């Protein structure tokens, strides 16, 4: 027996020029905030952008975007709704924001189903907000999406970087393109992360300051766009 979904997935991404998975070995480093902010920054440059939230057990981008119950339309598949100018797909469209206690194999099945039936419009960029860790979602994206690239987020903390380093080593070994590493929640001057990134021959993309206003901007994309956080994130545009 063959799973007929796997064959159609590459087809679904044919019209997407750049695919960027925002990832980190570690949770809570700001992947979701960076994903949304980056997607909005790309939009404001006049590009067509999609945002795909793959953090099925802890989806956040709908909260950050202040985008409540949207529902994809059906057209020979499902077509992501547009919110804030972003072609937006999240499991929340179906889980109604209730707890989604999914084992890895079910997360994998759900991801494959979603990728197989989602018909993205022609996009210049698709930003994917990934769950933490090196589990099913990360391994599936690597094996299923041929032109995937990774944008990795760390914080200045050693605890974060030790996990991030594991993801980076895995991606390097598998020869998956890495856009670079963004350092988020920076509070003090330190070259620790930058030095470590350069040791791995990777690009250090931007230093994003820790900023209390980030919390207030959650749910309000206009506030995000006018924030210092967004300005820091936007420096990533030079590298993608």
């Amino acid at each position, binding site marked *: 027996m063959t799973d007929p979904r796997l064959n159609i997935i590459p087809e679904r991404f044919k019209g997407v020029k750049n695919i960027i998975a925002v990832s980190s070995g570690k949770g809570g480093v700001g992947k979701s905030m960076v994903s949304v902010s980056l997607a909005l920054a790309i939009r404001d440059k006049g590009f067509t952008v999609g945002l795909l939230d793959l953090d099925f057990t802890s989806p956040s981008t709908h909260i950050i975007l202040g985008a409540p119950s949207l529902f994809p339309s059906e057209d020979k*598949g*499902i077509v992501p709704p547009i919110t804030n100018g972003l072609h937006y797909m999240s499991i929340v469209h*179906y889980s109604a924001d209730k707890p989604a206690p*999914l084992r890895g194999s079910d997360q994998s099945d759900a991801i494959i189903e979603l990728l197989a*039936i989602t018909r993205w419009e022609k996009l210049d960029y698709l930003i994917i907000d990934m769950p933490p860790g090196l589990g099913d979602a990360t391994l599936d994206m690597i094996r299923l999406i041929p032109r995937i690239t990774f944008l990795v987020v760390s914080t200045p903390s050693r605890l974060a970087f030790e996990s991030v380093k594991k993801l980076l080593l895995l991606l390097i070994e598998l020869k998956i393109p890495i856009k670079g590493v963004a350092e988020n929640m920076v509070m003090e001057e330190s070259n620790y992360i930058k030095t470590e990134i350069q040791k791995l021959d990777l690009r250090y993309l931007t230093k994003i300051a820790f900023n209390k206003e980030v919390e207030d901007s959650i749910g309000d994309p206009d506030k995000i766009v006018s924030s210092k956080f967004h300005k820091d994130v936007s420096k990533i545009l030079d590298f993608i």
Partner: protein
Amino acid sequence: MIVILKNESMTFPAMHEWALAEGIISTADKFAKENNITSITEIHIMIGELQQVEHDIVEFALEQLRTPLMKNTKFIIKAIPAKFKCRNCGHEWTFITGDFTEDVSEAIHFVPEMAHVFIKCPNCGSPDFEVSEGRGVWLQSIKGIKDD
């Protein structure tokens, strides 16, 4: 088996079942080519009932999507009842459609794993169950005339 569609209204092909049919057609076509099959005579498909996929729509889409290798292909679709097995207490049960509101049916229709969000084990209340049978759409086998 191909049946004459009861309803060929234009709303049919727009449904998401089309995307599932595309997967079947492209997988079967690729497999046939890789195996030097010049004409596919039968494609056997299994559709799990959990997802409540409309067989009529799948069949309609399959008809529309026939490739040159599928000029005379019979599409044989088999429905597989959905069975659950609780990992927490071992209880087994089957899928009963009427149990869900329309919203829940819709969610599971598109992403069957949403079952774990909305369905609980009737014995112990756990969402930690396995869909042991009847999930998804599978290409079971194809038959064809080989050119070697």
